[in-house]
C-alpha cells in the first residue's frame, strides 16, 4: 500500500487536498444556491434541496477515501511528522502554509473524515431550510477543523481555529432550537475570549522566534518551540499575594484559556450544554465528536510541550488535575439529574473530557495513550448518541426524557443501537470506552493515585446516569399513547450507525493498530515534557533569583 501511495506522490498533496476539497464544494453549493431561487419543501422530493445534500455527502466520502492513506503513511513506530507541506504564505509576517501529521493528528484527521459523512447523513431529512447555506457552512467548518489538526505553523493554526468558530456559530444560531441565539452567542463569546488571549501569546512567541535583524516574525512550530524553550526573563510579580508568575506561566495560561474553554474544563463548561441542546443534530455531533477534541489537541500539541515547566509545575499540574477530576465527578452528577437527554449527554462529555485532561497531565505513556483513545472513542460513542437523539427527535420533536418510556417495544432497532452506544459510553469492556478509560486510569494511578481513585468513581456514576436515562426512554411501560406510533429507524439511519458500531467494537476488541500508530507521537510527547520539566525546573531557581 505504501508503495502505491508513494507512486502517486500521496504525501505531497493529501493534506492540501483535504483542506481544499470542502472549500471547493462549498463554492459550488453557494453558486448553485444563488442560481436556484425557488423555495422548495426541502424534502427528499425537492430536487434543488437534494443538490447540496448530495454534493456534500459526496465530498465527505471523497475526503474519507483520500484521508485513508494516512493510515499507512503514519505507520506504527513513526514518531515524526509525515505528509509535510511547507510553503511561504504571507512573507512579510513570516507566516507559512505548513502542514503535517504525526500519529496523534493523523488519528484525529481520520476521526474527522470518518464522522463527517455520517453527520451529513444524520441530518439528511431533519434540516429542511436554507440547505445550501447549511451545507456550505458545514464544509467550511470541516476545512477549519482539519486545518487545526494539520497545521505546523502557529499562525495558520490560529487562522484555522477561528475559521471553524464562525460556521458553528451560524449552524447553532440559524438551524438551532428555541433558545438558539442565546446558545450561539454564549458559545461564541466563551470561545472568542479564550482565543483572543491565545492570539496575544501567539504573536509574542512569533516575534520572539523571528529574525531580530529583519524584524520578520516566525511562526513555524519548530522555531516557536525553540523560542519557548528559552526561559523568558520577565514576569508579573504579584508581591501582594507573594506570587511570582514567570513569563512562561503567563504564556501557558494564555493558551490554557483558549483550550480549556474548548475542552471544556470545569468551570468553563457552561457554554457546552446550551450549545448542544440548541444546536441541530449535525452541530451537536460535530461539537462532541471533533470540536471538543480540538481543545485537548491544543494541550497535547502546544500548551503542554511549549511550556513544560509551567504546565508541569507542581501547583499548576495539581490544580489542573483537580479541575479535571472535578469535571469527571461533577459532570456525571449533573448529567444524572438532567431532564433533557441532549443536556445529559452534554454533561457526560464534560466528564469524559475530564478523563482526557487527567490522562494528559498525569503524564505517563499509558495515560496519554489512554487520553488519545478517549478522544477518539468519545468522538464515536457520544457522536453516535447525538445522532440517535437526533433521529428520535425528528420523529417526536422532544428531547425530554420524560416524553418517552417503553419505546423499545415500538422501535426495537433504535433501542438496540441506543443500548449498545450507551454501553460503550459507560465503558463496558469490549467497547472502546473501556480500553480508553482503563488506560487513562491505570496510567494516571502511577503519578496521581488518589486523584485517579476519585475519578474512578465516575465509572459508577456513568452507569447510573446513562442506565437511568435508558430505562426512562426505552424501558418501563409504554404509557404515552402517541409513542405507540413512533416509526423505527430507516435504512439510511441504520446504515450510518453501523460503521460507528463497528468502530466502537473494533477499538474495544483490537485497539492495537491505533495504539501502535500513536505510540511514537505520544511517547515523544511524554519524553519531551518530562525532559523539559525536569531540566528547566533545575535551572529555574537560578533564573528566578
Amino acid at each position, binding site marked *: 500500500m505504501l508503495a502505491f501511495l508513494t507512486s502517486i506522490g500521496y504525501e505531497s498533496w493529501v493534506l492540501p487536498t483535504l483542506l481544499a476539497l470542502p472549500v471547493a464544494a462549498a463554492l459550488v453549493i*453557494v453558486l448553485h444556491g444563488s442560481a436556484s431561487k425557488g423555495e422548495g419543501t426541502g*424534502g427528499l422530493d425537492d430536487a434543488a434541496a437534494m443538490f447540496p445534500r448530495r454534493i456534500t455527502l459526496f465530498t465527505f466520502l471523497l475526503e474519507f477515501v483520500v484521508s485513508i492513506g494516512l493510515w499507512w503513511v503514519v505507520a506504527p513506530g513513526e514518531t515524526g511528522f509525515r505528509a509535510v507541506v511547507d510553503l*511561504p504564505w504571507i512573507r512579510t509576517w513570516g507566516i507559512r502554509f505548513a502542514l503535517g501529521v504525526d500519529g496523534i493528528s493523523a488519528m484525529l484527521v481520520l476521526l474527522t473524515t470518518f464522522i463527517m459523512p455520517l453527520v451529513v447523513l444524520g441530518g439528511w431529512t431533519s434540516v429542511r431550510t436554507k440547505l445550501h447555506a447549511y451545507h456550505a457552512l458545514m464544509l467550511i467548518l470541516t476545512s477549519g477543523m482539519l486545518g487545526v489538526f494539520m497545521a505546523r505553523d502557529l499562525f495558520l493554526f490560529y487562522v484555522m481555529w477561528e475559521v471553524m468558530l464562525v460556521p458553528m456559530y451560524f449552524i447553532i444560531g440559524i438551524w438551532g432550537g428555541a433558545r438558539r441565539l442565546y446558545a450561539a452567542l454564549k458559545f461564541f*463569546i*466563551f470561545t472568542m475570549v479564550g482565543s483572543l488571549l491565545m492570539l496575544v501569546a501567539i504573536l509574542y512567541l512569533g516575534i520572539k522566534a523571528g529574525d531580530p535583524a529583519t524584524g520578520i516574525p516566525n511562526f513555524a512550530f519548530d522555531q516557536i518551540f525553540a523560542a519557548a524553550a528559552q526561559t523568558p526573563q520577565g514576569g508579573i510579580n504579584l508581591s501582594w499575594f507573594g506570587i511570582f508568575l514567570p513569563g512562561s506561566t503567563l504564556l501557558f495560561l494564555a493558551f490554557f484559556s483558549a483550550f480549556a474553554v474548548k475542552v471544556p474544563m470545569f468551570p468553563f463548561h457552561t457554554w457546552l450544554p446550551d450549545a448542544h441542546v440548541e444546536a441541530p443534530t449535525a452541530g451537536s455531533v460535530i461539537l462532541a465528536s471533533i470540536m471538543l477534541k480540538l481543545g485537548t489537541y491544543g494541550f497535547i500539541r502546544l500548551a503542554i510541550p511549549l511550556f513544560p515547566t509551567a504546565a508541569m509545575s507542581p501547583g499548576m499540574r495539581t490544580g489542573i488535575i483537580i479541575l479535571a477530576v472535578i469535571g469527571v465527578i461533577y459532570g456525571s452528577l449533573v448529567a444524572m*439529574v438532567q431532564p433533557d437527554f441532549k443536556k445529559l449527554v452534554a454533561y457526560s462529555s464534560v466528564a469524559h473530557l475530564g478523563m482526557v485532561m487527567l490522562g494528559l497531565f498525569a503524564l505517563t505513556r499509558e495515560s496519554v495513550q489512554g487520553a488519545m483513545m478517549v478522544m477518539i472513542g468519545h468522538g464515536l460513542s457520544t457522536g453516535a448518541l447525538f445522532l440517535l437523539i437526533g433521529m428520535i427527535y425528528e420523529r417526536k420533536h422532544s428531547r425530554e426524557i420524560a416524553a418517552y418510556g417503553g419505546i423499545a417495544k415500538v*422501535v426495537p432497532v433504535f433501542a438496540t443501537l441506543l443500548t449498545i452506544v450507551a454501553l460503550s459510553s459507560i465503558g463496558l*469492556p469490549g467497547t472502546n470506552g473501556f480500553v480508553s478509560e482503563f488506560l487513562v486510569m*491505570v496510567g494516571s494511578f502511577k503519578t496521581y493515585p488518589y486523584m485517579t481513585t476519585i475519578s474512578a468513581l465516575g465509572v459508577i456514576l456513568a452507569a447510573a446516569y446513562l*442506565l437511568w436515562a435508558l430505562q426512562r426512554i426505552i424501558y418501563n411501560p409504554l404509557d404515552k399513547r402517541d409513542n405507540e406510533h413512533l416509526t423505527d429507524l430507516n435504512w439510511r439511519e441504520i446504515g450510518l450507525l453501523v460503521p460507528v458500531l463497528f468502530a466502537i467494537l473494533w477499538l474495544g476488541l483490537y485497539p492495537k493498530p491505533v495504539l501502535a500508530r500513536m505510540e511514537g507521537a505520544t511517547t515523544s510527547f511524554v519524553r519531551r515534557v518530562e525532559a523539559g520539566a525536569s531540566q528547566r525546573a533545575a535551572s529555574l531557581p537560578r533564573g528566578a533569583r
Partner: protein
Amino acid sequence: MLLQEATRLSHPLSGSIAEWVWLIPLLPFIGFLINGWLSITSAAHVGPKDPSAAGHDAAGHADDHGHDSGGGAHGDDHHAVVRHRYAGIVSVVGPAVLLLSFGLAVAIFMAMLGVSREAPFVRTLFSWIPAGDLHVDAALQVDPLSMVMTLVVTGVGTLIHLFSVGYMQDDPGYPRYFAYLNLFVSFMLVLVLGASYPVLFVGWEGVGLCSYLLIGFWFTDKANADAGKKAFIVNRIGDFGFLIAMFLMFANFGVLDFVGVSAAAPGAGFNSALVTTICLFLFLGCAGKSAQIPLYVWLPDAMAGPTPVSALIHAATMVTAGVYLIARSAFLFSLAPVAQLTVAFVGGLTALFAATIGLKQWDIKKVLAYSTVSQLGYMFVGVGVGAYTAGIFHLVTHAFFKALLFLGSGSVIFAMHRAYHATHNHDDAQDMRNMGGLRRYMPVTFILMWIATLAIAGIPVFAGFFSKDEILGAVFARTHESTLSEVSWLGIPGGSLLYLIYAMGLAAALLTAIYMTRMMLYTFHGPNRSGEKEQSHLAEAPWIMTGPLVVLGVLSLFGGWLNLPALLPLGPVGALEHWLEPVVGSATNAVTRGPHEPAHSTELALIGAAVAIAALGIIIALVRLKPDRLVPKAQAPEEQGFERVLLHKYYVDELYDRVIVRPTVWISRNVLATGVDEGIIDKLLVTWVGAGIPRLFGWFGSRLQSGQVGTYAWVLLIGVIAVLGAFTFR
C-alpha cells in the same frame, strides 16, 4: 515474549485439544449472534425514508408491534398463545452451542488428566491493549481451576438452557431471551478462562451486562427495569474496587496477568499494606458481584428476571464469580491475613444475616435468593480462611442443588401460572401462601426439590453436607497454628474471630435448615390454597423441563463424591483437592503452615455438631410450622413486630435510598445543577464577565434571523478563499 512462547511450546498441553480453548466462549457467542439476529429481524419494522414527513402513513404499524411485548410465563396478559416464528431454530441453536462448548470442555479435561498440570497452559490469541509498559494479551488460561469452572458453567448452563426451552416457550421475546442467555455464558466463560485480570474483567462486566438485560427482560414492568438497573449500578460499585486493585497491581508489579502477578506478589511482602489493600479492593469487587454485605441488595431484586435466569446467573454461575476471583488470587490473599479475615468475617456475617431474612419471605424465589446470598457467604468463609478448595467445592455443589431448587421453583411457578392463566386468575403465582399440597400434582418436582433441600441443609451423603462441613472444619482448624490466628483484626485476635465465624456458620446452618424446610412445607405439603378451579389445571411440567431437574437431582445426591473426606472413604478421597493442588495448594499451605491432618476425633465431633444442627433445624421447622393453618396471600393478615422487620429485609433498601441515593440526586439537582452551574458559574461568567461583550456582538445575533443567510455564507466563503488563497498569488 520469546520466553513466554518457549514456555508455552514446552507445556504438555501444547498442540493438544487445549489449543482450541478459545472455541469454548466463542461458540455461545455465535449462538448469541444467530439468536440476536433472529430476534431483531423478527421484531423490526424499518422506518420510512423521511421520518420528518412521516407520522400519518405510519400510524397503521403500531398494531403489528403489539404482540412483541413483555409477558410470557410471568406476565399477566391474556394474549392467545402463539409460539415465536423462529422458536424452532432458536430452540436448537441456543442449547446446542452450549452442549458443544461442554463437549469441548470435557475433551480438554480428559487431555489434562494424563499430563502434568503444574503450570497453567496459556493460550495467547492476540495482543489486546499494548500501551507504554502495559501489555495485556487476549489470552485464555487452561488450568485445573479454570476447567472446574468451565465444566460447571457449560454443564449446568446446558441443563438450564434446555429447561428454558420449555419454560419460555410461549414468550414473545423467545429469541431475545436465548440471545441474552448465550451471551451471558460466553462472557462467563471469558471470566473463568481469562489469563489476566483485565481479561477476567471483560467477562466480569459482560456477565453483569447480561444480568442487567435478563433481569429487565420483561422491561415494560417498571419494577423489572428498576431491578436490572439496580443490579448493574451496585455491581459497578464493586467493579470500582476491582479497577483500583488492578491499578495498584500495575503500579507496583508492572503486570496484570495471573502468572506475572503471582510471581511478583511475594516481593511486596507478607502482611504488607500493599497486598492487604489490593486484596481488600478485590474483595469489594467480589462483594458486588457475589452479593455480600453491604452490596447484596441487588440480588433479591434480581429475581424479577425469568426463573431459569435466576438459576443460571443468580445462583449457579455469575454470583459465584467473586469466590472464583479470590481462589484465582489465592497467591495474593494468602499474603494478606487481615484481608482474609475480612473476607471470612463478611462472608460469615452475610451467611447469617441473609438466612434470617430468608426465614420470613413468602415469595418462593425470594427465599431462594436470600438462601443464595447466605450460601455465597459460606463460600467466602471458605476462601477467606484459605480453604480455597473447600470454597470452590461448595461453589460446585451449590451450583447443582441451587440450580435444582430454582428450576424446581420454576416448574412450580410454571404450573401455578398455567393454572391461573387457564382460570383468568390474577393472584401471585410465586407466593407460597397461594400454593400448598403441590406434591400431589407435581410428584417428580417434589422429590427432586427435597433432595436439593436436604443437600443445602447439610444432611449426610447429600452434596452440600460434604462441602459445608469442609468449610466449617477449615475455619475451626485455622483457629490455631495458622497465619490467620496470629494476626489481629480491628483489635480482635484472629483466633477468636475465627471462633466467632465458626459460630456464625453453625447458626446460619441451623437457619438454612429451618427456612428450606419451611419453603418445602408451605409449597408441597398441607392443603392446596391455589383455589378450587385452579387445582384441575395444576400439573407437572413437560419433560424438557423435568429432564434437566432429574440430572441436577443426581448431581445433588452424588456431588459430594468430588471431594470426599478421609473419614468417609466412600470413593476416592479428596479428588477435587488433589485436582486443584497445582493452583491453590501452596497458597493453602502458606496459611496452615504446611499440610495438617486434623485429629479424627475433632473432625468427628465437628461433623457430628454440623449434622445435629441441620437435623435440629429441620425438626424445628417440621414441629413448629403448620402449613394447614396458612391462608392465601389475599386473606393473610399483616405481619407484626420483628417478623415485619424481617419481611421488609431490615429496611436496608430504604436506608440506602434515604442515605445514599436520594441525597446524591438531591445535591446534584439542587446544589450542583441549579446552584453551581446555573447559579454561580453562569451568573459570574456570563452576566459579569461577559456583560459588555454581548453588546459588542449583539448586532451579529440580531441579524441572524433576518433571512440574509445566503449573504453570510457568501461573505464567509469569500473570506476563507481570500485568506487561504493569498499565498498562491504572492
